[in-house]
């Protein structure tokens, strides 16, 4: 009942030199969970504020549930929001903060009490219901802001980095609850986060933004596995995708090879038009398979020297030098190696993504 359609939204802040959002169009289906991801300052908050009606676009249209709301007052849009800055009411106790929206809507006091208790419980705020926000820790304040938003059961839920100050455990449990809640109510959600795991695990779709534009909007796996632009690949994933530039040459067996210097990697037939031209190869760090020492120059294997070894708990991160390019490789925690050691990497062909070195756009290979 409440899909969100954004048509060509343009917004320049007064006195600003560049557009905060630059002709953004986006369609969020009813009940869909859309995650916005992008570098700091790319216009995520601005976009949310235009949907909420706190900022009016210079051009373009906002449609919610089939109704044009571009210039409608916020309160008539039936939505609720978690502010990046929390915007908790300092003069109201936590319980009153959480119940504020319901009270404004004239809900039944018992109902309010019940819902407040429920949200407080969900966000582990029950002991603090009687405090003023000034006496809370940063994370607790943020939770108040989240609780205030979710009790509303609004048709559209806008969340601007709602969990940025919470610990992993709490995020994890809240995320699960949120997903359940949203699914139950059929709430359409726009969720800004900088946490990729959150983005990928939570979103039905992920919109990656860059300088006021949407670079790619697709399902999490597609965004992760097939970044539509180098930017997306470089932005998502930690560590991000590796990019290697080489020249396409004819291989011995008539196939094409990307010449990286000391090594070469097979290039799909579909890219024959790039023969003798430069091409960019994108590989996720975890796409490499790592073997220690051994038969270094076996065919399909790439010899590399380990420069840095970082244990990350659930995996290890290797920084290796491959034909002079620095490449990040993620390996299972069982892998152990010392800097300076030589490793053999193998690279399955289906893990290779190819980019046009000029437009930086993904090239179709099938």
């Amino acid at each position, binding site marked *: 009942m409440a899909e969100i359609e954004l*048509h060509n939204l343009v917004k320049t802040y007064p006195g600003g030199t560049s557009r905060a959002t630059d002709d953004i169009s986006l369609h969020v289906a009813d009940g869909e969970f859309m995650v916005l991801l992008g570098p700091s300052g790319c216009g995520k908050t601005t976009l949310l504020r235009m949907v909420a009606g706190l900022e*009016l676009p210079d051009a373009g249209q906002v*449609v919610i549930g089939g109704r*044009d709301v*571009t*210039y409608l*007052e916020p309160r008539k849009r039936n939505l609720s929001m978690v502010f990046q*800055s929390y915007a908790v009411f300092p003069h109201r106790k936590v319980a009153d903060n959480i119940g504020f929206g319901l009270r404004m809507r004239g809900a039944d006091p018992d109902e309010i009490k019940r819902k407040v208790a429920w949200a407080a419980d969900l966000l582990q705020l029950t002991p603090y219901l009687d405090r003023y926000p000034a006496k809370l820790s940063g994370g607790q304040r943020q939770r108040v802001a989240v609780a205030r938003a979710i009790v509303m059961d609004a048709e559209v839920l806008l969340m601007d980095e709602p969990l940025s100050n919470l610990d992993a455990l709490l995020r994890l449990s809240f995320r699960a609850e949120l997903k359940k809640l949203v699914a139950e109510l059929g709430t359409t959600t726009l969720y800004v986060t900088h946490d990729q795991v959150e983005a990928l695990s939570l979103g039905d779709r992920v919109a990656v933004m860059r300088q006021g534009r949407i670079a790619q909007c697709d399902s999490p796996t597609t965004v992760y596995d097939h970044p539509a632009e180098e930017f997306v690949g470089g932005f998502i994933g930690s560590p991000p995708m590796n990019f290697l530039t080489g020249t396409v040459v004819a291989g011995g067996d008539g196939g094409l090879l990307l010449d990286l210097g000391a090594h070469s990697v097979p290039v799909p037939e579909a890219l024959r038009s790039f023969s003798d031209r430069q091409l960019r190869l994108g590989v996720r760090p975890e796409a490499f398979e790592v073997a220690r020492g051994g038969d270094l120059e076996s065919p399909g294997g790439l010899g590399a020297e380990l420069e840095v070894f970082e244990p990350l708990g659930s995996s290890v991160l290797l920084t290796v030098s491959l034909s002079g390019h620095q490449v990040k490789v993620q390996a299972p925690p069982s892998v152990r190696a010392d800097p300076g050691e030589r490793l053999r990497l193998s690279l399955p062909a289906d893990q290779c993504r190819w980019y046009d070195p000029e437009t930086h756009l993904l090239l179709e290979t099938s």
Partner: protein
Amino acid sequence: MTAAVKRPPKRIGMSPWVLLAPSTVLLVLLFGWPLVQGVLAAFQDGDGFTLAHWERLFGDPYFGQALLNTLLLIVIVVPIQLVLAVGMTLLIQAKPKLAGLHFYIWAIPLAISDLAAGLVWLTVFADRGYLNSLLIGLGLSENGIAWLSYDNPTTMLLAVVVAEIWRATSMVFVIVVAGVQMMPPDYDEAAQVFGASAWQRLWHVTLPLLRPSLQVALILRTILALQAFAVAQALTGRNFPLLVGETYQWYVNLQNPAVASAVALVILALSLGTAILYMRALRQPSAGGPR
């Protein structure tokens, strides 16, 4: 299934003028016409435009004196009050014991009318007042000092200054306190951590953040100081004439509204001049509020 874009409403949210209208209407209705009349009166007599009233005014021996005294008083009193009020605010912010009580006491002079304030200080500074009683009691003086005598202009000024400071510092104080109460402590804490001394914090953080309040306090204080003469009159009679006193004098005792209007216009010019000066000097850096 794109819904038609409704034209953006001409006014987005509330136009400021909607909010300004009620107060403006009241002011214009009440004071607009009298104001125009008052201004015109200064330039008119029975047969049209004239500058005679101004000549009359400038020829008056009290006028120059009053102008001088008024300026002197403002130049001395307002800065002292500002400094004192900020100091008092800082004291209250330091949360001393009985802060509430102190705060209350400091706000008390607000409640006292000009006339009563003048009386109060008259009992202190009069020849046979408390101050001289004290001096004599301490054996510092035999017969006391004629503080308010016309031939002691310095002590006379001093007395008026003390009385004005007592009477009107509270006003600045309360405005500044209200401003400080709105200020998140984060900024001061950040300044502490970054090595700012108490003075530096005051100068680089607290005062700039207080700018709106200080601006208002200064403007109001100056304008109201230009309006107050009862204290000086109670203390010194006509020995220390002030401009507003002259307005009353001309209007009430001399029944000459035209010259009174001329004096009033001088006050008006002074007030607006200083107000604009303060507004320029303490202009908000861009429209950006805190946060």
